[in-house]
């Protein structure tokens, strides 16, 4: 981080917010944000810029946060908006046919289903027990990110627009220039992959590395 961090210049704010300027905290936060932005943008420079801007904005307003958790929430919301803007811009210039070509590859999950379209015996989705508990485990999020990173680029991008930026289908179709059924197929494939990845790497094996 090269930007100057304004010192806590009023006595009243100083003690309360001193934790927000802690180097270790900021460095950890920055790393987390960077990973997050890089995943979305697949461009290290753009990611670095977005993170930097979001962090500078947050530190400028440090006084309005009650603590680290509040700052973190805020800073990720800003980052998410910045990423959304960049993605919208980028998708507008992407050639829609190239978007689909990558996804056209023969990906019909024929390994998962038999000829009649029923699950193969060893591909039956398992019970995940109480998966919500996983949301609190940092190891789970590492697996989650690995699985997201494993999605083919355009599938991942469309999936992120839908699930992360929470655009609705019509907005995505309009900005990317694909039909609803194209979109549905891409989202379906992304969800299938992600589900399988999580099942294999987390819910079936616990915390083992792949």
């Amino acid at each position: 981080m090269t930007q100057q961090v304004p010192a806590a210049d009023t006595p009243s704010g100083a003690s309360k917010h001193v934790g927000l300027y802690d180097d270790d905290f900021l460095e950890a936060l920055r790393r987390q944000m960077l990973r997050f932005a890089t995943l979305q943008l697949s461009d290290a420079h753009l990611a670095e810029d977005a993170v930097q801007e979001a962090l500078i904005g947050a530190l400028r307003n440090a006084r309005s946060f009650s603590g680290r958790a509040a700052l973190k929430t805020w800073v990720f919301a800003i980052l998410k908006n910045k990423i959304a803007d960049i993605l919208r811009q980028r998708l507008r210039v992407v050639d829609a046919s190239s978007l689909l070509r990558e996804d056209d590859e023969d990906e019909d999950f024929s390994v998962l289903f038999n000829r009649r379209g029923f699950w193969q015996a060893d591909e039956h989705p398992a019970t995940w027990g109480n998966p919500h508990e996983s949301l609190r485990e940092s190891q789970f999020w590492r697996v989650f990110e690995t699985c997201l990173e494993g999605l083919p680029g355009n599938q991942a991008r469309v999936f992120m627009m839908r699930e992360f930026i929470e655009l609705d289908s019509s907005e995505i179709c309009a900005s990317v220039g694909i039909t609803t059924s194209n979109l549905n197929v891409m989202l379906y494939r992304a969800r299938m992959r992600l589900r399988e990845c999580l099942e294999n790497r987390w819910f079936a094996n616990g915390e083992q590395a792949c």
Partner: protein
Amino acid sequence: MLNCREVTRLYSESQERELTVKERLLLRMHIAMCSGCRNFGEHMKFLREAMRAYAKGRDNTGGK
């Protein structure tokens, strides 16, 4: 009757649009007999929840 492949497609689409009455009935009939697809349906809901948590900066991951 729907097969599992069709059911998984419907589950995915149900995240983008409201299913028709007929689709919902067919889905229900299928999962009454198919635990794999029942689990799959739960997984789809969980994926969305996890993505929302992730988008919020993963505050649940020990950031407090």
